[in-house]
């Protein structure tokens, strides 16, 4: 099954890109939520928490409806492309990264901020110091974000269309091969996927254990 490697590579590419974009969104947003007080903050936090539990297939449906030709963003011609999967997966992963970033920073001693300012930190330097201090839980947030998208199928199916050589990722390929009765291929793909998820979770556990020392 010569498609095994391209499919795995595509899965890794889209999910990693989605996770990185989620980091660009979630890190600043989570930091702002953790450190600032503004009206509506509690509301946004509960939105994020709800967002963390969004079913991927629901996200997929709404993104697909937006990207279809009959939808508002149809002219972008993004439906059934890897970019569409990245968009959907970013929507899935961003609340995860945001919520866990906020939690990670909220766990820091609130007086630490005062101490850092009192040693002459600018606002930016203070934030970078907090990020460095919380680097282990922030890394965990990143990996949780990745985990939330590498194994999802609903969104990939809806917005990607599982098109051979174009948008077929591990999860959609597994369902396809199973549906065709090609169990050996399905199992081979599953092993690839399991290996990836195992490696990510193993690294995550190792990081958390190190932080516990």
């Amino acid at each position: 099954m010569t498609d095994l490697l391209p499919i795995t590579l595509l899965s890794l590419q889209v999910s990693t890109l989605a996770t990185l974009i989620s980091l660009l969104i979630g890190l600043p947003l989570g930091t702002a939520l953790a450190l600032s007080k503004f009206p509506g903050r509690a509301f946004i936090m509960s939105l994020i928490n709800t967002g963390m539990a969004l079913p991927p297939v629901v996200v997929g449906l709404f993104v697909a409806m937006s990207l279809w030709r009959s939808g508002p963003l149809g002219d972008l011609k993004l439906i059934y492309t890897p970019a569409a999967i990245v968009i959907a997966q970013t929507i899935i992963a961003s609340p995860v990264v945001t919520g866990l970033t906020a939690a990670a920073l909220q766990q820091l001693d609130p007086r630490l901020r005062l101490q850092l300012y009192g040693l002459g930190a600018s606002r930016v330097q203070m934030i970078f110091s907090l990020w460095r201090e919380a680097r282990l839980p922030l890394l965990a947030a990143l990996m949780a974000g990745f985990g939330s998208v590498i194994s999802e199928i609903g969104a990939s199916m809806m917005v990607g269309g599982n098109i051979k050589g174009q948008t077929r990722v591990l999860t959609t390929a597994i369902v396809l091969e199973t549906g065709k009765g090609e169990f050996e291929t399905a199992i081979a793909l599953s092993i690839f996927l399991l290996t990836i998820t195992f490696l990510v979770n193993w690294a995550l556990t190792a990081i958390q254990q190190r932080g516990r020392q």
Partner: protein
Amino acid sequence: MKRLNLFLSLFVLLAVMLSACAPAATPAPANPDLILATTTSTQDSGLLDVLIPLFEAQTGYKVKTVAVGTGAALKMGEEGNADVLLVHAPASEAALMDAGFGKDRMLVMHNDFIIVGPADDPAKIKELGPKDAFAAIYNAGVPFVSRADDSGTNKMELSFWKKAELDPTTEKPAWYIESGQGMGATLTIASEKAAYTLTDRATYLANKGNLQLEILLEGDNALLNVYHVITVNPDKWPKTNYDGALAFAKFMTDPATQAVIASFGVDKFGQPLFYPDADRTDADLGL
């Protein structure tokens, strides 16, 4: 220095990621992107994995084959979300054409449906015609798995219940199992539950090795599964790629392609999975 290395690795990583989204270079046609909506059973047969690359090589179009349920495929045509359809639900297709959503509709091929079930045939349908077979299953109360997903196969199944003047979909007796899934998954369920089911021959043959089901009824004209290719009407949806859709329709009915269709599956299953019909009419097939 460590920070610089981190940024560099992130940059390289990003570049590799983005290459996944980079569009491939395409030749000839002005608008090369074509969305073909078809059914899961058509895709699962593997026929398109042979035909699509041929079409792309010949014409330079880049086809996005989206395999969904029949209902969804027809809906995509109605909403302009696809350029061309390859489906097998003649009654529903007629409705689509009447409403003006399809421009050209050409007969492509057919395969047939068969009724499969446990080898010991508890409802004793082997010697009966399809209508009587369905009645026998109903009366014996033996398990039957329905696709229950508005697919072409499902529609055919429902037409037989109707002909026999029975209605298990409304009554929902315990023996009537609604899988809501594609043909492959439905066959697996039927196999596991020693149940009867209606299936297209192609999917059955492809999955045969994993199933404990036998062909119990075949060959009746009423069991023909007829495929048409329909171009979505650009008058309704100007954004569709009509040129590409028409090119695909012509390709599917072209004698050379028809010959490929006729030979598909012979080496693997000892018999063809599809029978080309471009040189015949709907009436020839009893439609």
